[in-house]
């Protein structure tokens, strides 16, 4: 699996090169949010706002009123919790094109409970006018700013930093309101069928990597799985998602790096009810609890955000054990090098090393 180093840092510079009205605002976490290359490339368009999120958010609203496109950079948790009222009244209400680049979503930081944005999607989804996007890999990171730029109102983006795996082909950028259909490990027959599956699996963000592992293993056992990677959490009106939810014989599983309240799981539950699916839904995420400081891998296992949790949920929906062990899941490569990943009929066989952990100095 390819790991891309600091894709946001490079992409922000590329994206801004021909857009003089892009400005970046940072609250003392510039390198930590990979805005340092922008700062060094376009110092006149970089505004250091100090450790003062409330002012930064309202200030960005003011600049947006004058035709600028402020890109706020700080940790997701500080955007959403420290400045929620400012976000609602100075930006979302007037529908201004401010982009909130929120880093360290969910349990991707060892910084502990103060640094872990586990309720940001719930908060941002609740705001009228707000569009909510989440990156799941380097390709998403490299294209999310262009997706946001086409949206005339405010956009909240769950960003990834550091060593980011590439799960999706680099030439298949994120598209607004368009879930990626993932067919890792699917047989040609399964791909050819027009509709109907045993289970629909919806994943987002860093959980999609885990979802791919689970889907490969499940498909090996003959379970038909429709797996979709969701990057637009609001508005949540994707015909591909609707089709997958209504075609699942046994039900749906959602895996997300967020509380089970208010994020993708909630959005899917609302959608399934509206569609009258009448099938079971298993929401995998933080079960209305806070986490604590530790490595991403440890936390994903501890809180059931990994491939194993998906397998157990599917077993529950199917009412049978499938005999998939942890070692099998970790050995699967969700994005093998060589032929394009995400294609049909390919079983990942490459042994994957340990997942990159966040260094303490990156806090």
């Amino acid at each position, binding site marked *: 699996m390819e790991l891309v180093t600091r894709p946001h840092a490079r992409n922000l510079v590329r994206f801004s090169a021909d857009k003089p009205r892009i400005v970046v605002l940072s609250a003392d976490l510039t390198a930590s949010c990979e805005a340092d290359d922008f700062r060094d490339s376009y110092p006149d368009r970089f*505004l250091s706002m100090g450790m*003062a999120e409330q002012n930064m958010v*309202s200030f960005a609203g*003011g600049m*947006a009123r*004058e035709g*600028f496109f402020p890109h706020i950079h700080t940790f997701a948790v500080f955007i959403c919790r420290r400045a929620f009222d400012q976000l609602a*009244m100075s930006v979302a209400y007037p*529908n201004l094109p401010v982009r909130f680049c929120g880093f360290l979503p969910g349990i991707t930081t060892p910084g502990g409970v103060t640094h872990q944005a586990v309720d940001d999607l719930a908060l941002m989804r609740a705001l009228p006018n707000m569009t909510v996007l989440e990156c799941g890999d380097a390709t998403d990171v490299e294209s999310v700013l262009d997706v946001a730029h086409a949206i005339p109102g405010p956009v909240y983006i769950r960003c990834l930093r550091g060593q980011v795996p590439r799960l999706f082909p680099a030439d298949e950028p994120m598209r607004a309101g368009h879930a990626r259909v993932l067919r890792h490990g699917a047989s040609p027959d399964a791909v050819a069928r027009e509709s109907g599956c045993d289970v629909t699996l919806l994943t987002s963000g860093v959980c999609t990597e885990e979802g791919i592992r689970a889907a490969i293993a499940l498909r090996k056992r003959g379970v038909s799985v429709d797996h979709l990677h969701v990057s637009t959490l609001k508005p949540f009106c994707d015909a591909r998602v609707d089709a997958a939810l209504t075609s699942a014989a046994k039900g749906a599983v959602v895996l997300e790096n967020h509380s089970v309240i208010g994020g993708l799981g909630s959005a899917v539950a609302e959608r399934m009810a509206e569609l009258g699916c009448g099938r079971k839904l298993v929401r995998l995420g933080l079960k209305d609890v806070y986490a604590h400081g530790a490595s991403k891998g440890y936390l994903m296992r501890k809180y059931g955000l990994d491939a194993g949790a998906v397998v157990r949920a599917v077993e529950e929906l199917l009412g049978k054990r499938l005999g998939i062990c942890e070692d099998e899941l970790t050995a699967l490569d969700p994005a093998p090098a060589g032929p394009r990943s995400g294609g049909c009929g390919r079983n990942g066989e490459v042994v994957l090393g340990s997942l990159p952990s966040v260094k303490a100095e990156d806090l």
Partner: protein
Amino acid sequence: MTTGNPTNQDPGTRGARSPDGRPDWPADVRRVALGIRRRVLDHTLRNNGGYLSQACSSADALATLYVHLMKLGQSVAPAVPLPFPGVPGPDNPGYSTGAGYNGPHEPGLDRFFFSPVHYALVLYSTLIEVGRMAPEGLAQFNRDGSSVELIGAEHSPGHEVTAGSLAQCLSQAAGVAMARKLKGDTGHNWVFMSDGEFQEGQTFEAIAAMAWHKIDNVTVLVDANAQQCDGAMSTVMEIDPIAERVRAFGGTAADVDGHDPEAIAAAASARVPGKPLVIVCHTDPCRGIPLLATRGEKLHYVRFKSAQEEAVFRAVLSEMTQDGNRPDGADAAALSSPAVLGAGKPGGRE
């Protein structure tokens, strides 16, 4: 706003003249301020409730801004406000703010940002007194479906941002000012605040950010009436000295008598390059209506407790009205003549 009838007067070009024939802007300010207090008292009597003490404290500063300090174009908004236009959003492409009452947005013109939007009645009255809004517009105040709301939002006449969650306006204005500097605009940016907002940390975040980024195209007038919702600020949480606190955060500040237009104007002319300016206008929440002081510290929202009390205030209104015998029950248009148009009216009583 692009609609409307730009019939409003530029208040700087009309008004009183001194004995030697020169324009006498302080007299205009006093006349407008009297009109604001009179109109808000009249409204408070009609509705048995209103933000009356805020009119008493801030009328002179607001009148000084509109009559003398701000370089604004004529209103580009309808003289009678349109109904609530809906909220901003993708399904409301024709939405516009109430900033059109302060003239068009042009690089060389000033902008006005109104922070303590519970003073909305005072701002609406100011707009009427300087000829930017029709008097009958006030009849829509706090009516269902109206944009002339009790607590103003950005669709309300004279409002440009949504500031009701206090202390967000200054940061928004600072962002606008920064953007205007980057664009090379020469117009100034005026912010009107209340002293209670200096209890909010965001206010000082904004001052620090303006100082750091040398945002010197912003001047803040603070109505320091020492009152807040729970009562006198000295009983809620003392925040004096505001000016010293502003200076400590990198801004410049001046303390003035907020009822003295010339003192306010002199302070506004003493800007320092690279720094925002905060003018602390020390004011009396009963100025112009001393009878209000009999209410003790219950000044935030005035509601008359008895018919007898109402009658006493009605008598005060009668005294404040030019001819002294304005009939009860007349509609708001009875006070329709914008003061700036009525050159020759007596000056203020303050």
